[in-house]
């Protein structure tokens, strides 16, 4: 089986600040990879390099057979295969929930409005929000907003889902509903990369845990390996802080 994502010797800096150093990473189809690390360690930047929201200056990224950093790569087309969920939801406030979801399928994939709407309603049912189709984002709670954002990303039928701290902006009582949706997705076999501080979720749903420290991929392994028996001192230190 070929990897879904391949990253080779990826480096990225902002000015003189090197944020990612020589990252090597492979993600297999249906794999759920959880990225952990302290604030500022480069987790978001790595995720954003994968769908070209940031441009890495060195190294290689392959999404299936497509070299992301090649000059002639059609980036919008590549992004159609990769959904992204943001910490701040980034729903389109001027559109109803259902239109948030159907916009890209209609305009980008070229589906008919009926087709897109049917798919959109199916996804809203899946995230438990079919009654909110005609609501505006401003009237939703944080947890509901994030579930709509997940449905919006799924509507493009991506092969990969990227999550950047999807529950960090939520009130504690709403974290569960979003994690539940993500858990379902993982079970259905979606390839996922998740940045999160929810260690319970990482342990339960993650196939592989990756620890980033100051832009370096310091340690990776199964949840049992990384949580149960971390090899690196920095990993131990980080885990003792977040699990305390």
């Amino acid at each position: 089986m070929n990897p879904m994502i391949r990253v080779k010797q990826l480096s990225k800096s902002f000015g003189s600040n090197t944020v990612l150093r020589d990252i090597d990473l492979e993600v297999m189809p249906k794999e759920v990879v959880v990225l952990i690390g302290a604030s500022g360690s480069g987790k978001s930047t790595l995720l954003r390099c994968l769908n070209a929201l940031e441009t890495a200056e060195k190294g290689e990224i392959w999404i299936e057979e497509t070299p992301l950093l090649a000059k002639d790569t059609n980036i919008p087309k590549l992004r159609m295969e990769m959904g992204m969920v943001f910490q701040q939801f980034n729903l389109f406030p001027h559109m109803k929930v259902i239109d948030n979801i159907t916009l890209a399928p209609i305009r980008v994939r070229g589906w008919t409005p009926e087709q897109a709407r049917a798919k959109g309603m199916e996804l809203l049912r899946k995230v438990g929000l079919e009654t909110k189709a005609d609501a505006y984002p401003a009237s939703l709670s944080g947890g509901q907003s994030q579930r709509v954002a997940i449905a919006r990303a799924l509507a493009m039928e991506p092969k990969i889902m990227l999550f950047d701290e999807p529950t960090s902006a939520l009130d504690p009582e709403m974290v569960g509903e979003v994690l539940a949706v993500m858990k379902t997705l993982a079970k259905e076999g979606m390839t996922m990369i998740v940045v999160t501080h929810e260690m319970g979720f990482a342990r339960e749903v993650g196939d592989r845990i990756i620890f980033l420290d100051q832009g370096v991929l310091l340690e990776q392994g199964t949840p049992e390996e990384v949580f149960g028996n971390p090899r690196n001192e920095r990993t131990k230190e980080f885990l003792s802080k977040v699990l305390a």
Partner: protein
Amino acid sequence: MNFELIYEWSDLFLKGTLITIGISVAGILLGAMLGLVIALGRMARTVYVRWPTDAYVNFFRGTPLLVQVLIIHFGVVPALYGSSNVYIAAILALTLNSAAYCAEIYRAGIQSIDKGQREASYSLGMTHFQAMRFVILPQAVKRMIPAFGNEFIVLVKDSSIVSVIAAPELMYWARSMGAAAYKVWEPYLTAALIYFILTYSLNKLLIYIERKTVTQ
């Protein structure tokens, strides 16, 4: 005050007022369209697009409208058509001038939209153009309405400048009356009152529209 005299000239004042409204509306509408193109140009990645559009805005904001009107009437329009036409010259000058200000309004409006909106659009596979068209501009335009309204009010007043090329708008007839009847108060106060009524009603309309869009 000689009201009889004003009454004698009232047909011409009315005609002038309509022309003032006409060239101002044409100027703001065409200027808003051209301004969008220029604003997008100023945000382009390549300097070859950015430089000329920057220069455009700097020129039209940095020189007096009077000078622009004269250059366009006596220079640009004759060069393009062989001879000048006061209507074309007036509308062209107001359009080019307001486009520079509208471009700044668009830029400020577009930049006021959270960058997460653009990133979410891109992450769904939208191109730069699609993100602008479906996500950024619909939100930005709402925020721009007050600024466009102000620009329109300024343009109605500034359109009086085209009287120097004898475009027969409101100010032109006021000046004609002043010269023909050797009067000062009657023509200029009448013109001032009409301009005031125009801008005052516009202002009221603007407040109404703003209230509508906010409660939506």
